[in-house]
């Protein structure tokens, strides 16, 4: 576990991150899916363009997804406040990343907290119940977190202030194996991030 060998890849990632930041969209805008990927990697004429995409709903309504994800480097040196927004966890239907109409009040409360404190940022943790395979759930949890992020962006929160992480079914809120536990585990949790004092 030699850590010195990480320096080169970390430097590479930093360079790529800077390249991405250089082309970042204006704060406050959300790029819809399927969207451009410009600026996400060191741009070169080949190898970075999206390959042929496919639309599973071809012929149906145009789909939108979340905006581009936030830059992780912007979230360093923040302290986590898990209590502040704990009452506003979103819950989801089985195998769904759609935000229920009943969750509007929670989203508004989270949006209000971010609007009232411009130095605060947000971490959204996506989670799933155990009734799915592991990597499927890891993707589903990410989609739940990204759906919450997009809803907040639509409420006027700058999405570059929001970071997502999916735990799939690796971090259940309730370790039980019944519907009551599963309902608690299909969720997006909001963790308020504050700048560390003196930073």
């Amino acid at each position: 576990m030699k850590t010195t060998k990480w320096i080169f890849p970390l430097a590479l990632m930093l360079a790529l991150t800077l390249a991405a930041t250089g082309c970042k969209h204006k704060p406050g805008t959300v790029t819809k899916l399927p969207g451009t990927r410009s600026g996400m990697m060191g741009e070169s004429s080949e190898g970075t363009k999206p390959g042929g995409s496919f639309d599973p709903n071809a012929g149906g309504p145009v789909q939108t997804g979340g905006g581009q994800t936030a830059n992780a480097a912007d979230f360093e040196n923040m302290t986590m406040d898990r209590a502040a927004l704990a009452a506003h966890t979103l819950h989801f239907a089985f195998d769904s990343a759609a935000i229920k109409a009943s969750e509007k009040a929670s989203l508004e409360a989270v949006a209000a907290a971010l609007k009232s404190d411009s130095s605060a940022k947000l971490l959204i943790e996506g989670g799933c119940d155990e009734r799915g395979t592991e990597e499927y759930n890891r993707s589903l949890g990410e989609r739940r977190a990204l759906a919450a992020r997009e809803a907040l962006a639509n409420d006027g929160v700058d999405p570059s202030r929001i970071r997502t992480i999916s735990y799939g079914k690796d971090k259940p809120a309730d370790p039980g194996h019944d519907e009551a536990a599963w309902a608690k585990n299909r969720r997006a949790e909001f963790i308020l991030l504050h700048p560390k004092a003196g930073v």
Partner: protein
Amino acid sequence: MKNTFLSPINIVLLSLLAIAAPEPSHAQNEINIQSEITVMGRAKPVPISLEGFTGEAAEVLRFDLWVQGFSFVAPDAAQYRISGSGSGSVQGRVIDAISKQTKFSRSYTGATLRKQAHAFADDIVETITGKKGIGQTKIAFKAQSPGGAGEIYIADFDGHNPQAVTRDNSIVAAPAWAPGRALFYTSYEPGNPDIFYHNLSNGERRIVAKFSGLNTSAAISPDGTRMALILSKSGSPDVWVCNVDGSHLKQLTATPVDESSPCWSPDGQWICFATKMGERRVLAKVPAGGGTAQRIPTSGVSNPTEPDWSPDGKWIAFTSQMGGFDICLVPAAGGAATVLVAGEDPSWSPNSRTLVCTRRAGGRYTLSVLDAMTKQVKDIGRISGNDSQPAWAK
């Protein structure tokens, strides 16, 4: 490549022809695939007898041969009689009970008694089936404590000699082998699910994907140069491909739904993955260099995820979710799926006959080894609260 695959229509046609009469104009490999469809999961085990082995040698032989399609019977009912001893070192002999001919007689020295027994089992398998045995192969997997944190482990294919690869006490996921004793896996140790490269020979490791959002499910191309992976940096979990050092990243799917679990065709031309089409979970494949994704039909089962393409190119093993979870097979071009046994997340052995998978028992995960032809299955020892996501070294 494309031309050698059967289209779903051809599969149906062949099924009809198989009932009526053999169709000589079809290519030989198509007929082989068709005949294996009827055999996979339904083959009868080869009856053998084991005489003279005790202790660890007997235990190894019984495990290795059971999960490679042999059953144990009395000597007078056996097709092959296997005899020898395993005290001090292993020596053994295989006699064809019908011809009375000695197939081979061999003694083993060096290493450990356990390894000698695996080597004898491999010789038995290769002599009788013509396929190279799996007794001396390795698996990697995730061992998770009830609290959620875990480590990546490697072990012999039967779960013995486990070794922790990571010591991070962090959430880990999705180990994948690369040629030359190296692993790729996901770890949350950096505070985000990122993909690590880990050289098992010298312990060197580095992060190869650490974009915002999800970085997971690394799958290394058979030639060891390219990596398929899942990233969510575009706003939704999609399949991407890059060089194994993370360079030349290219997006292969751009859907608003979630993709998961990419794997490679053995010729490196295709990447197969789980996705959704019209709100239904499906398997699909996309050219590894980019292009249009196409569905791989899995008729007869629903909610397929976790595909793994067999090294011989013929099959895709996957998990279907229909109430419980089942290990299934489908011809690589798609078609009628065969349900094997309850389980999840199959990974093929190098000889394309045996699978290692995860099984839920009493709310916990354990690993199982499964012979795809006979459906004979055995659990392997558990390291932690939950062992899952096995990957068989090729």
